[in-house]
Structures are given as structure tokens and as C-alpha cells.
């Protein structure tokens, strides 16, 4: 059929099964918005800032496993979206982001709201396109969805000049994407997998090192199976939280800069790392030359460039984690779980020596308590997003995660302002779950305008501010490494968060005691409205354990033991 470029965008989104689009209109994309107005197949959610549109699409993608879609106009609309693109790129989140561009005839003339969008997005997307003719649009849009979701996922950016959205051309979407230059490897090499299994059978102190790739591959349940059948303990990265249930006997905890003592010690003592979809990030390894010195490495990753990038792999396996783990499960009989009993015992002792915990205070609420308490009250019923800072680390440490895709947070870029819009996207994708955003008094103000979107669209996100009147994470570094010179991190000047929530039509609570907190949370859940719960917490609490940046993983600053 002969239709306009703008109509093609709508048709393609419908054919891709998109039910929600996050976006913000403007001059260059108006033709497309005119077509959005005319259709009723998907919902458009008007965020109040383009950055939030992208984060919302990320939250939607992470919670649903589908491709997230966002739309913005040229110039400032696009540049506002860049932080979101970079965030999605770092955390391998599948997105298709469509931006308007000035008409072809004006490109290169410093036209109104012109910016070299593909030039800017090139280094923070998996791929990008500048569409120069409507006849290319069906192919480009179909490729964009395919590239975003396949292999190592990531954001794909499609920049469409205004005249191309008006141009009429033939639309045909019934074809298979054939890219001779892009063919991700999904099936692991069987001989290499067999060798890896034999190495595991040989090892004395093997350790699963689970990463975000497991969740992306929808392989968490297969991985649980493999862990249980082998009896091998596991550590999770920040991005992998929820792969194993929090109460799994074989889950040690998160490892890394703010990992548990036992997890970091296990990593330091293991003789065989079984890395599944994890990328040896510097927040995980600490000083590389001291990292897991005694260990051989099995590394399963869909991206060959992740393998042997930082830590040499003795058994590199390129492939989809799900496929490889299924193959491993077929060979699992060569492994004798009882062999690792002494190793499991060693790890139990590590954990008994310095368990992951915190000291209660009779005066003030401890931030960690809030997270544990939400876990007790809502547990599996909630999906959890966070902003960035101390509250984010405490969430990763203390929330009792029970399933994959339950925890959504900005790991690679560490983007303050991510949490609230992401939680909105999570709510749109999983309306039956309660959407909680643990946030900080700093972060929440970076996308606070989304109170309006969530109230308007009835996406009842509950924002829980762990209010320490500080840019707490930075304050912690200043306390520890800058002789307590708290330069520009004091946030004593605060808005009235209760009134702020109310001004947008949400509900606000200010909480100073545990009883008040329980009451506020229960009320917010019951009212099913957008809420801010502003919790006054201990100001000077530090996130522990901590491996100072660049230090060795086994040299942790630990929680002081309390005399009983």
C-alpha cells in the first residue's frame, strides 16, 4: 500500500506488537504525532521530559522483556534523550528511539532545531539510522527492532527528517530481516561446553558468577536448575539480582565494591569462575591484577567482545546463556555436588564471620531497615526500581528478590533520575505488580516532573525517599577519602515533598518512625495512587562493606562489630 512516512511509523509499531510508546512531540515529528492521534492500537504516554520518556521505555523493556519504544522531536528533544540512550547502551536494554529531524533540504544549514543526531548517538547506541527516503522506512524500522532485541541487546536510534515523514511510498512489512553483516552467535560450541563441564567436575572450589545476561536471556530458571543440580555456590552482580531467590542456600549475595564479605571472599578464593552473562566490570573486580588470582575462567557471553576483555578466559563460550546452560544441564551428571561440601562450608564460615547486616538505632530509622521492611510487607508483589546512590546499593543488598526482572536499576551509567520514570515504565508493563521506586532526596528531583505523567496516566508508582539530606553516596566518599570535607553535598535545603506530591495530584507522607512508615506504605498501596513517602533516615550511614576504588576485592572496609 502507498502511505506516508508518518503512517509507516505507526504501521510498523503496530506490526511489531508495540502497545505503549513514551514520548514528547515537537515540530520535526509532528506528522508522526498527527498519525498517533488518529490510531487506537497503542497508547502514547506523554512524559514531561524527553529523558524520562527514554527511562520509562527502559523500565518497560526490562520488566517485560520486550523492546521499549520512545519518540522525540529534533534538536533539544533529541539531546534531552541522549542520557537515556547512553543508559540503555551501558545496560544492554533493547530500545527503538525515533527522533524527528529537520527536512532533508535544510540538513547542514544550521536550521532551527537542527542537530547532528546520528553523530551524537553513534557512540551510545548499538546502531543508528538517518532515513533519507520513505521507501527505506519499512526496512529500517524492521531492522531496528531486530537489532535492538537480538544478540547483545541495545538501543537503536532512527532519525527521520520531516519531509520523509510526509513522503508517500510503498509500505510492505512482510519480509524477514536478512543482514549479511550481522549474525549473532547464539548456540555455544558443544565441544567447548563439554570441556567446561569437565573442568567444573575437576575443580575444588568452583563459583557461579551470574550477570545481567542471565536475566536478559530469560535463563534464570535454567540457571537455578544448574546451580541446584551441581551444588555450586553462586554470586550475583548488581544487574543479576533476582536470578536466584534471596533465600536460596547456594546464593552467597552480590559481589563487588558493595558486595558481601562472603561473596567477595568466595570470588577471591575460587579456583574456577563460571561466568554467565557477566562482564567483569571494574565495580566487581576491584584491582584486576589481584582479582581471583587462583581461578581459571569459564566465560559464557553472547558478545565475543566481552570475553577476555578484562580477564582472560580459559574456556571462552560465545552464545546465548539459555542455550549454553541447557546444554550444560544435559551433561550435568559428570558433576558430583557432594564434592564441594568443604567449599560450601568455607563460604558459610565467611558469611558467619561478617554477615551482610547493619546496626539498628533506637532514635532514627536506618535506611536499610526501610528496604527490609518493604521486602517483608510487599516481597514478591512488588517490582523494585531505584535511583542512584546509597539507597540503590542498600536496595541491591537488602531487598528479598524472588524473581528475575523484579529489580530495575541503572548499573552501568549510574544515572540519577532514572528511578521514577523507569518505575512508571515498569508499572505500564506489569500493572498487576506494585511499582516501588527507592530513591534519594537528590535523585528524585532529577525527574520529579513525572509526578504529572504518572498521575495523569494512573500509573501509581510509590516513591520511597530515603531522605538523608545529603548526596549520600558522594558524601560517603568525602567522609572516607576527603577528610570529611563535604563539598557541595549537603541537601539540608529541601522542598516539602508532601505538598509537592499533592500539588501534582498524588499523595505524600512524611515519616519519622517505623510505625508511621508501615502505616504510610499500607495506605499508599491501598489507595493505589502515585505517592511519595519521605522517610527521614540516619544521615551519616555508610554503605558497607566497601572495596575502595582500585583496591583489591578481598580488602574490604567492614561494618564494625557491635558489643552485645
Amino acid at each position, binding site marked *: 500500500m502507498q502511505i506516508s512516512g508518518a503512517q509507516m511509523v505507526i504501521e510498523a509499531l503496530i506490526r511489531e506488537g508495540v502497545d505503549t510508546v513514551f514520548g514528547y512531540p515537537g515540530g520535526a515529528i509532528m506528522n508522526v504525532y498527527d498519525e498517533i492521534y488518529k490510531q487506537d492500537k497503542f497508547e502514547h504516554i506523554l512524559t514531561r521530559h524527553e529523558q524520562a520518556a527514554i527511562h520509562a521505555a527502559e523500565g518497560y523493556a526490562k520488566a517485560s522483556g520486550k523492546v521499549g519504544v520512545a519518540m522525540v522531536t529534533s534538536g533539544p528533544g533529541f539531546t534531552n534523550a541522549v542520557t537515556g540512550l547512553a543508559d540503555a547502551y551501558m545496560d544492554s536494554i533493547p530500545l527503538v528511539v525515533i527522533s524527528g529531524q529537520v527536512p532533508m533540504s535544510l540538513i547542514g544549514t544550521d536550521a532551527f532545531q537542527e542537530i547532528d543526531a546520528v553523530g551524537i548517538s*553513534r557512540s551510545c547506541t*548499538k546502531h543508528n539510522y*538517518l532515513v533519507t527516503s520513505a521507501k527505506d522506512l519499512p526496512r529500517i524500522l524492521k531492522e531496528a527492532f531486530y*537489532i535492538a532485541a537480538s544478540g547483545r541487546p541495545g538501543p537503536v536510534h532512527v532519525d527521520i527528517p520531516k519531509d520523509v515523514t510526509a513522503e508517500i511510498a510503498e509500505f510492505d512489512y512482510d519480509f524477514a530481516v536478512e*543482514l*549479511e*553483516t550481522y549474525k549473532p552467535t547464539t548456540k555455544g560450541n558443544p565441544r567447548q561446553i563439554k570441556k567446561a563441564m569437565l573442568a567444573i567436575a575437576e575443580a575444588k572450589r568452583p563459583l557461579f558468577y551470574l550477570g545481567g545476561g542471565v536475566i536478559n536471556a530469560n535463563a534464570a530458571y535454567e540457571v537455578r536448575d544448574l546451580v541446584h543440580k551441581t551444588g555450586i555456590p553462586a554470586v550475583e552482580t548488581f544487574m543479576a539480582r533476582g536470578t536466584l531467590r534471596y533465600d536460596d542456600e547456594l546464593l552467597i549475595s552480590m559481589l563487588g565494591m558493595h558486595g558481601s564479605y562472603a561473596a567477595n571472599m568466595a570470588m577471591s578464593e575460587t579456583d574456577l569462575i563460571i561466568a554467565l552473562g557477566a562482564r567483569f566490570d571494574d565495580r566487581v573486580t576491584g584491582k584486576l591484577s589481584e582479582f581471583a588470582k587462583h581461578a581459571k575462567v569459564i566465560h559464557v557471553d553472547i558478545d565475543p*567482545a566481552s570475553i577476555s576483555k578484562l580477564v582472560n578466559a580459559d574456556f571462552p563460550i560465545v552464545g546465548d546463556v539459555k542455550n549454553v546452560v541447557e546444554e550444560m544441564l544435559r551433561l550435568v551428571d559428570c558433576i558430583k555436588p557432594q564434592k564441594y561440601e568443604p567449599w560450601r562450608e568455607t563460604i558459610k564460615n565467611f558469611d558467619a564471620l561478617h554477615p551482610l547486616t547493619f546496626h539498628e538505632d533506637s532514635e532514627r530509622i536506618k535506611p536499610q531497615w526501610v528496604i527490609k521492611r518493604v521486602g517483608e510487607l510487599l516481597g514478591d508483589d512488588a517490582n523494585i526500581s531505584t535511583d542512584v546512590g546509597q539507597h540503590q546499593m542498600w536496595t541491591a543488598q537488602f531487598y528479598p528478590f524472588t524473581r528475575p526482572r523484579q529489580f530495575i536499576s541503572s548499573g552501568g551509567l549510574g544515572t540519577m533520575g532514572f528511578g521514577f520514570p523507569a518505575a512508571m515504565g515498569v508499572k505500564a508493563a506489569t500493572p498487576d505488580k506494585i511499582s516501588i521506586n527507592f530513591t534519594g532526596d537528590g535523585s528524585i528531583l532529577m525527574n520529579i516532573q513525572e509526578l504529572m505523567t504518572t498521575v495523569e496516566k494512573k500509573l501509581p508508582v510509590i516513591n520511597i525517599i530515603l531522605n538523608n539530606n545529603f548526596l549520600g553516596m558522594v558524601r560517603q566518599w568525602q567522609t572516607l577519602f576527603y577528610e570529611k570535607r563535604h563539598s557541595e553535598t549537603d541537601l539540608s535545603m529541601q522542598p516539602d515533598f508532601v505538598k509537592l506530591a499533592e500539588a501534582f495530584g498524588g499523595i505524600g507522607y512524611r515519616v519519622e518512625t517505623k510505625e508511621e512508615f508501615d502505616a504510610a506504605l499500607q495506605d499508599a498501596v491501598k489507595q493505589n495512587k502515585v505517592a511519595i513517602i519521605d522517610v527521614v533516615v540516619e544521615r551519616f550511614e555508610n554503605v558497607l562493606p566497601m572495596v575502595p576504588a582500585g583496591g583489591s576485592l578481598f580488602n574490604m572496609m567492614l561494618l564494625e562489630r557491635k558489643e552485645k
Partner: protein
Amino acid sequence: MNENIRRVVSVIVINEASVLSRVTDLFSARGYNIQSLTVAPIPETKYSRLTIVTKGSVRVIEQIVKQLHKLIPVLKVFDHEDFVEKEMALVKFPADERLADIAAICEAYNGKIVNASENAIIAMVADEPQRVTNFLKVTKRYNPKEVVRSGAVALER
């Protein structure tokens, strides 16, 4: 392992808009080194061939190859091991330098005088990059006014 080695890498890419920027952006974004870069379409195909001379540790070179592969329009990457490598240079000498001497040196380096006008003599050589460098050294004393090197091209044997 951490020692820097010189490597010649050929990249076959789809000949489309901004493909060259994708490659050069990758090098600058990840802090890889480009010593020379040549590009030209491969006749009768929709591809172009880039030849990149780079330097880095074994690990960095391995990453360069893998990261190049990840670019969507990249078809193939050759990290050359056993190959023939050539580079061309054009050199302009003042017209009053000794033409016969320059011509004799050219011959020793697979080159020749390609232009002689009242203002200048232009010589051309095509040889291994190291030999091109030597040629330029040897002809220094004839006061070259301008030198242009093409960057290397390579083919696996």
C-alpha cells in the same frame, strides 16, 4: 603481553553513509590508535575496504578486531598475519635539484619521476612502508618541498 605491537587490519564494510565515521569513532571512543587509514570501494560490489595500521598490546588488538566486528555494517575483519603490504608516496622537489640522481634513487625503491615542470619535480614510490620511509630519508638532501603518503594497503598471502 602488554608490549605494543604494530598491526595491519583490513575491514570490509557495506559502502553506505557514515560507515567510515562508525569505524573512526570506535577508535577514538575506545582510545585505540590509528597510524594510517585508507578506504576505497571494492570494484563491482557494494562493499568498501578499509586498511588500518594500528598499534597496541595483544589484548587491545584483540578488542579492536572484536569491536570492529560488532559494528553492524562490518562484514569481515582481517587481522593480518602473513601478508603483502604496500604504501605509496609522492614527493615534490625543487626544479633545480639533480633530476638524474633522484631518478636513480627512485628506481631502487620501485618509483619513478612522474612529473617534471619548470617549477618542480614530482617523484612517486610504492613499496613497503618501511622502505618508503627509507626513501624519504635518502632523498632528504634534495630538499623535498612536499611529501604525501597514502597510508598502507595490504593483502593476506
